[in-house]
């Protein structure tokens, strides 16, 4: 488990899978001897939050602990938005580009190429819809909730809305975006004819696998950390209003 005293360069060197996490905190390699805590502070990042996220990312069995109540929902919302940007601006376009290059230099039939292209386009569309629903609906709601909960007299209209809606509803319709990526990998490994550009083929599969893992972790952050905390805040706000 990573702790605050570790030199940041060692954390990253020994856990290269953390690389995609760094831009979400505006961190770039070139850390020198600075510790995790020093790097975080100098970039205005909450060290405890970084540690919780990094540890959860490295160990799928790590359960974010009580450290989580230490930071604001705003911090989490920022992180989630930064993660979305990483998917939209870096991860998805990169896989897409490689997939297209792979198809160009392949012996796939026109039908197979068509199938893959349509599949990826549709997937990207669904992915974007999913992200924008969160960004336009859920995240602003979470921020507003935190703001209202801090007020002495919360807005009655917001309370009225709160009595009808709970974040738990979102949880029920929370799609798993990684499933289709798994199908795509399986299609390439098992069903399509071999690709000549082996190196590129491996890159595509590695990218897909990294993205899948990232999506699972991200869904965990939302489902196991964000939603329970928001639900708790909803409850306590409603209680305080009804008792006050």
């Amino acid at each position, binding site marked *: 488990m990573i702790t605050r005293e570790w030199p940041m360069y060692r954390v990253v060197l020994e856990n290269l899978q953390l690389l995609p996490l760094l831009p979400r905190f505006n961190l770039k390699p070139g850390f020198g001897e600075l510790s995790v805590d020093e790097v975080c502070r100098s970039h205005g990042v909450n060290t405890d939050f970084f540690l919780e996220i990094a540890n959860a990312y490295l160990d799928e069995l790590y359960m974010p602990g009580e450290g989580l109540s230490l930071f604001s929902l705003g911090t989490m919302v920022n992180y989630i938005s930064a993660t979305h940007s990483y998917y939209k601006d870096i991860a998805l376009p990169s896989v897409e580009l490689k997939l297209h290059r792979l198809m160009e230099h392949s012996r796939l039939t026109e039908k197979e190429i068509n199938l893959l292209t349509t*599949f990826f386009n549709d997937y990207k569309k669904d992915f974007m819809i999913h992200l924008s629903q969160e960004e336009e609906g859920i995240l602003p709601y979470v921020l507003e909730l935190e703001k209202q909960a801090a007020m002495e007299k919360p807005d009655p209209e917001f309370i009225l809305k709160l009595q009808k809606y709970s974040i738990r509803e979102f949880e029920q319709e929370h799609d798993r975006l990684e499933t289709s990526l798994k199908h795509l990998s*399986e299609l390439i490994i098992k069903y399509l004819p071999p690709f000549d550009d082996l190196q590129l083929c491996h890159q595509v599969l590695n990218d897909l696998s990294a993205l899948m893992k990232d999506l699972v972790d991200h869904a965990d952050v939302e489902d196991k950390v964000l939603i329970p905390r928001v639900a708790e805040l909803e409850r306590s706000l409603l209680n305080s209003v009804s008792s006050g």
Partner: protein
Amino acid sequence: MRIRSFILVIDSYLARKGMVALLNRIHGLRVLKEFGAKEAFLPYLESRSVDYIVIDQHAFQHWSGLFISNPGLLEKTILLEYAHKEDLVQEVSTSDVKASIHLMEDRDSLIAKIRNLLDRQDRDPESPSLHLSPREITIVRLVSMGLTNREIAEKLFLSTHTVMSHRKNINSKLGIKSISGLTIYAIVNNIITIEEVSSLPAK
């Protein structure tokens, strides 16, 4: 497949190490921590997500109070028996545990039992294809061949409305909305071959 986490509460050093060696042969699980019979393992359970506890019968008796007050724990418990059940003074019924294994059981039977346990759980939420009904599988197949709802309805002697409601159920079961997504799903689940897929996926 999600990786299942195990902890062991086994007093005998040899039995404990033997259990670790055995579990390490099984794909899809990880032993997080080992405890002796009287070491308190509850605090650990509260800090980590643990799927299974392999506990020997003496430790099980020692901690029976804990199991009585936390019935949820029994759902995670794999009991390692040393003696015959009748020899035990029982405070908690050992039949309430998730599974039992015996110290004298042979390797293959132990592996099969644990493998079974993991498979049973995997099947529940994560392998959706097993939840599609035969009719739904037929519809996925026809959708992948490029048929419209109306064409599927005619072919299966159903109303278009019924086909649409099947489609809706399929979408929510698989979490796949697009036709191309369903098509790829159908290929990797051997519902259809690439050759049979419609040449121009319908929009």
